[in-house]
């Protein structure tokens, strides 16, 4: 994004510039390090089958992390996405199994596309409610989405009285027999869900860097008042990011229900925390205004590879949690160092210019 290194006139800058470049690419460096480490330490880690397996694990988190990144860039947070995953997978399960009872003995069944559309709409609606709470009723994002975390989880449990919807194989008569393919199908050798991730990630990165909406998202997080006075429709921007986060959660809900061919109301517990971790690891600033989709994806991969690799090495899951936590904290510490260094370099350039 910035071309600080090539336009720096100052001589003592060359060392700092190298360091800055290294710090900027830190998530990528971390990814290479964990890859290298597990290729050596864990047997079969580098096989194609394992790579696809890890990617599938990562994808679940990456969807949520992409939505979370937008929310965090605006200076907010969405704690409800994990619960929305549970709720939307239950909705998917209900639609596949029971359809919608329209009364008078009629029941409406849907095909796979219709089910996917309805589930996505449900996720967007939850995001819309979050957005209304935050922009119109001035509830702090943390509180609004914390409330939604409980409400959505409770609703998911109420759907089935806490039971699992089993055997979501669909019915060819209604065109819903393709439902399991969302999570298990492959296209050109890659799982469908990976293709979906690629499309979503490219779309999100495009929004972030090449549309006015994306610029407005960054401006809102950087200085809400200033953005509003510059003509940015701050409320609309916030509505968008929460609705987008809801959509991401719905996609994950669909994928999980389809993969397992079952919908369990406890699905997605603590997913929101993994999503936040991936975003932060990828360089998203919790105070808003800073973050990139590519960084988030890499962050999701670092976390995913770390946990899968440690499992393959046979490290206990207790140690895995400790390691994951340390990596996240280290990422933020390095992030702070980078911001300081970057400010110093830019200031040095301006001083050199004004001399």
């Amino acid at each position: 994004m910035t071309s600080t290194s090539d336009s720096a006139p100052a001589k003592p800058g060359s060392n700092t510039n190298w360091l800055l470049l290294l710090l900027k690419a830190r998530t990528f460096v971390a990814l290479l390090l964990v890859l290298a480490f597990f290729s050596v330490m864990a047997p079969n880690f580098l096989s194609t089958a394992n790579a696809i397996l890890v990617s599938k694990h990562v994808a679940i988190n990456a969807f949520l992390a992409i939505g979370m990144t937008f929310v965090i860039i605006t200076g907010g947070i969405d704690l409800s996405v994990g619960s929305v995953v549970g709720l939307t997978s239950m909705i998917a399960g209900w639609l596949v199994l029971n359809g919608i009872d329209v009364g008078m003995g009629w029941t409406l069944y849907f095909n796979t596309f219709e089910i996917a559309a309805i589930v996505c709409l449900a996720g967007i609606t939850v995001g819309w409610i979050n957005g209304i709470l935050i922009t119109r009723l001035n509830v702090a994002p943390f509180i609004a989405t914390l409330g939604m975390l409980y409400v959505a989880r409770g609703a998911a449990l109420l759907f089935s009285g806490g039971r699992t919807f089993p055997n979501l194989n669909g019915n060819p008569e209604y065109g819903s027999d393709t439902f399991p393919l969302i999570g298990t199908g492959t296209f050109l050798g890659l799982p469908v869900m990976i293709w979906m991730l690629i499309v979503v990630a490219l779309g999100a990165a495009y929004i972030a860097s090449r549309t006015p909406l994306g610029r407005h998202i960054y401006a809102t997080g950087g200085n809400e008042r200033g953005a509003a006075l510059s003509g940015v429709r701050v409320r609309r921007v916030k509505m968008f990011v929460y609705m987008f986060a809801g959509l991401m959660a719905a996609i994950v809900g669909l994928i999980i229900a389809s993969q397992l061919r079952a919908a369990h109301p406890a699905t997605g517990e603590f997913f929101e925390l993994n999503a936040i971790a991936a975003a932060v690891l990828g360089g998203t600033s919790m105070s808003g205004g800073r973050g990139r989709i590519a960084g988030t994806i890499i962050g999701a991969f670092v976390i995913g590879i770390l946990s899968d690799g440690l499992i393959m090495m046979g490290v206990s899951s207790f140690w895995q949690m400790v390691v994951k936590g340390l990596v996240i904290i280290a990422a933020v510490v390095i992030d702070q160092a980078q911001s300081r260094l970057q400010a110093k370099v830019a200031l040095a350039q301006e001083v050199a210019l004004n001399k």
Partner: protein
Amino acid sequence: MTLPQQNGETHPVGLTIRGATKVYPGTVALKDVDFDIRMGAVNVLVGENGAGKSTLMKVIAGVETLTSGEICIKGQPVHFRTKDDAVANGIGIVFQELNLFPDMSVSENVFMAREPARFGIDIDHVLVEERTRELMQRLEQDIDPNTTLGHLRIGQQQVVEIAKALAQDARILILDEPTSALSAAEVEVLFRIIDELKAQGVGIVYISHRLEELIRVGDYITVLRDGEITGSRSMQGVDIPWIVQAMIGEKSKDFSESLGHEFGKEVFRAEEIALPKMGGGFMVDHVSLSVRAGEILGLYGLMGAGRSEFLECIMAQHPEARGRFFVDDREMREKHVSGRIARGIALVPEDRKRDGLVQIMSVRENITLSSLFQFTTLFHLSLRKEAARAAEFIRRMTVKVASPDNPISSLSGGNQQKVVIGKALMTGPKVLLMDEPSRGIDIGAKAEIYHKMRALAADGIGIIFVTSDLEEVLALSDRIIVMANGCISGEFGRGANAAEVIAAASPASAKSKNKDMVS
């Protein structure tokens, strides 16, 4: 500079500053300043914004250190490295913006961070309350130490702030614009407190822009202009023209000459704009005005006169405001900033940091933020077009920047201001609203911005600019409107008399005018 001898005897000098010079990168804030604070008297300090008053006070309060020069208390040189050093030497300061905790009680506020405690951990609430009560008695104020601070009126909160300074045994009390937020009755209370403190031998430094008030309350007056002392004497025989003369002086800053163009037809009109104030009354009290194409309209007044609020009303920041705006004779009904920008209104806000810029974004992203849709087809933002347009405006505004992708925060204040103005201009405005456009920037950048304003007016843009700088409003405006207490209290053409403009700006004149209208 010489002070009458007999006054020197009745009011001993408590603190002297000799040869004070303070250099900031790029500007000299104080040049060889001598200043005496006399005990048991009110030492008035007056000067325009940026004259160096607040720097001088920060030096005395230990917030800043001098580049050269010395501070003596009772003949002994002292060095204040931190605020605590100054407090230990009996110096208390009450800033214009009160530094209080609204959700805590009065006594907790008074003893904030200095709570008397048993064994260093257990706060002695009884003692805290007792001593607060004593202080309130000394100030003759009936304020219960247990009241939550936020429930007090603003005048009472100020009393609490004064009590806080006195609780630290302040012998010298600096009051920075203490009356700017007070009602007339509260001002009287404050003056009574000042009289009592004087009688107790406290030396008071009083900073204000309200000249009648200074003459009434002051014993000694010191006038600062561009970091230099231009007048220092006892208050006897001082009148407003003398102060204005000392404040503004003969030599003028570079305001660049008017380009001598004709004005076009009216581009903007406000009719009966009213913005209700919390607790009754109006921040903006039914203001009507108009500006013609190519005209520079100066909106002068003191802090709290409602000038910035009026501009905010134009920019749709106060949905509760009433009244109508017209651009090119068509009513502006747009409810949102972006709609108003599209109608040709652009605002350069007063507080650059808070309202004008997104600090963590680059210069390019800031300057194009209001105009992104110019480079957008459907939803695709052309980064190439954006960069080209940003470069064009950086050149036009003569912003000094190594790379347009550097963060805005790395620029100097003057260059940041040019970016804010550039952002406003990129939207292609018909009417440019500028709130204190020259605040906090150095003289060179000021001259450039004045020059720019002239050039824009010559291009047919109507400019409304708000300022508290008398010299600026007199030199730059084609027409001056003075506001006080939310009303328009005077209108002057080019070449207006400085003393008349100041008189119109005082809140008292607004009141008497209102009375005239009633009777």
